């Protein structure tokens, strides 16, 4: 059972990481962030599976953190994007 869990974790990670590498080369910034999002979810799934494989319950907490922070960094990313597009006209920095 443990080996199967590890195998599933490996599979998920491989798939999502391959997707990430493919997309990192793309020019569209949004797609890269989507791939990171996918990796975050895949990572959480892998952590859960590994936790089940090694029967260490604390791993669930790692997955919790991963999911929570993945959402936050995605939000930070889009806020940077939108401020970029919206501010293009008024980019004057508040000079000292």
């Amino acid at each position, binding site marked *: 059972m443990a080996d199967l869990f590890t195998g599933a974790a490996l599979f998920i990670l491989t798939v999502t990481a391959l997707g990430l590498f493919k997309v990192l080369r793309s020019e569209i910034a949004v797609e890269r962030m989507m791939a990171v999002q996918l990796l975050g979810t895949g990572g959480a799934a892998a952590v859960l599976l590994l936790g089940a494989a090694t029967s260490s319950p604390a791993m669930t907490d790692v997955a919790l953190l991963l999911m929570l922070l993945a959402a936050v960094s995605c939000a930070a990313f889009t806020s940077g994007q939108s401020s970029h597009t919206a501010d293009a006209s008024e980019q004057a*920095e*508040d*000079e*000292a």
Partner: protein
Amino acid sequence: MSLASLGTATLFGLCGAALAGIGLFIVIAHAGLLRRIVGFNILGAGIFLVFGAAARRGAAAGFSGDPVPQAMVITGIVVAFSATALAVALLQRLFDLTGRESLDAPAASDKQQAEP
């Protein structure tokens, strides 16, 4: 020597060594300051993995790893984060003041370095 005989700890230790090398390269060879800051973080990650290898190897007394280097890594990660924050703030200030984000642009060094 086959890779399989290395063991998780040594494997990640070697990974740490390589990451430290890559991070160092980014820090030295990149002119962009933001990239250098990312490089510092990768260098840091490599260093922490070396600590992690030491920790994993030191599994004993019912612990799956030596807690002392683990604690050091946690301290180190927090310190590295504050360093990143300070560097980013300095970079943004430099950018606000001069509009550039590297240190080697046409220097304002000699012309009128005013007095304090």
